[in-house]
């Protein structure tokens, strides 16, 4: 009896059958083009800081700082390459690959690489996967808060060209248009071995004196900034986050 009842009710459900309606009636669609999620009061200005904030932020643009010449710089570069302190920024799924590196199987410490909890003290920024617009803002801020010389390692396909999210409204396709990237590691996901290989590659780059990302950023500051501002809509931070 009860089963019958259930069956009858089940039959009543208006589950859509057949092919979907391709051209819906425009009257029922609603005028979505007028929807404004963030009006002027709610949205922060993209142009920069408010007067009030300007008092609290320093926004001097970065300068190009010339390296020393000769052996001294080489020595410093050697030291930099042998003491890579990671700012592990778990922007995407790739951050999970950093953990095995710290533990006994891969043990990055033996290569002079260790994690560090604050951008101020780190020298290498690992972007762990896809960067959405929202995280891009944080990436830029953290990158700028690192002290030069500083290096960026893009992890996974998403940082290279958007990877499987290439057509997402929210995933940045090319990381190097927003911050200078020294090494990309392809893969979705790359294994920790690949990550280690990338780090070794970075070491050689630094030792050869090619790890001048910070200077590159300073040189092309306008371009980077314009790119960043194009996607980051509510730019409520100074132009350079010291």
């Amino acid at each position: 009896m009860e089963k019958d009842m259930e069956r009858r009710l089940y039959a009543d459900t208006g589950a859509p059958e057949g092919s979907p309606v391709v051209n819906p009636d425009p009257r029922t669609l609603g005028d979505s083009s007028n929807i404004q999620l963030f009006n002027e009061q709610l949205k922060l200005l993209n142009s920069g800081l408010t007067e009030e904030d300007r008092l609290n932020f320093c926004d001097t643009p970065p300068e190009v700082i010339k390296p020393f010449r000769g052996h001294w710089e080489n020595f410093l570069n050697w030291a930099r390459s042998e003491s890579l302190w990671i700012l592990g920024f778990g922007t995407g799924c790739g951050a999970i690959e950093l953990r095995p590196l710290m533990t006994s199987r891969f043990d990055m410490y033996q290569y002079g690489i260790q994690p560090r909890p604050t951008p101020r003290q780190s020298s290498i920024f690992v972007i762990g996967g896809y960067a959405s617009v929202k995280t891009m803002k944080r990436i830029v801020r953290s990158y700028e808060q690192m002290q030069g010389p500083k290096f960026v390692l893009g992890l996974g396909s998403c940082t290279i060209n958007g990877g499987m999210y290439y057509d997402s409204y929210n995933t940045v396709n090319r990381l190097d248009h927003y911050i200078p990237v020294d090494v990309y590691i392809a893969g979705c996901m790359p294994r920790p071995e690949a990550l280690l290989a990338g780090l070794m590659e970075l070491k050689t780059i630094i030792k050869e004196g090619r790890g001048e990302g910070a200077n590159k950023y300073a040189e092309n500051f306008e371009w980077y900034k314009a790119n960043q501002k194009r996607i980051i809509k509510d730019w409520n931070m100074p132009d350079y986050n010291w």
Partner: protein
Amino acid sequence: MNIELYKNLENSFGVTSLEVKNRNQSYIRVKKEMAVPLITHLKLVESYKHLSFFTIIDQIEKGEFELLYMLHSYSRNHDLGIIVSIERHETDMESIHHLWPAAETYQRELREMFGVEFPDSPGLYENFCLEGWEGIPPMRREFDTKRYSEDTFYKRPGRETNDPAKYMKEKIYPSEAETW
């Protein structure tokens, strides 16, 4: 789902279209104006105390959004989905934050993603994910995300896109491809 309960709800709230997925999961439909009274009743009287999730399905073909409130009852060990259809051009819905404070967050998200308003929901206009988004909400189906991506982000040249099944047949397992 208990038939008596359904009958009760049918009488009191005009619930229709019971869809029993299995022992532990059913869906019902209700009119927009009866939705919040129904949910309140379910929470306070019928032991559906837990809001599992709250989401929207864009039924663009029908010209409406389907709001899906998923409730759970611990004592009945049962999930009950309440489907409420609202017109796409009239996107106001009563808020349920007074029943579950956590609903605030869902409503914030749904407003951002679909442009559905929940008047009086606290913090509705705070940023959820899209900080300073301009243009139509991205989860509406008329929004073309690929075009948006191409317009907004820099495409790296040289990208090739393959159909995974075909690619696997050709590249990875060519010998076995014949057998598929």
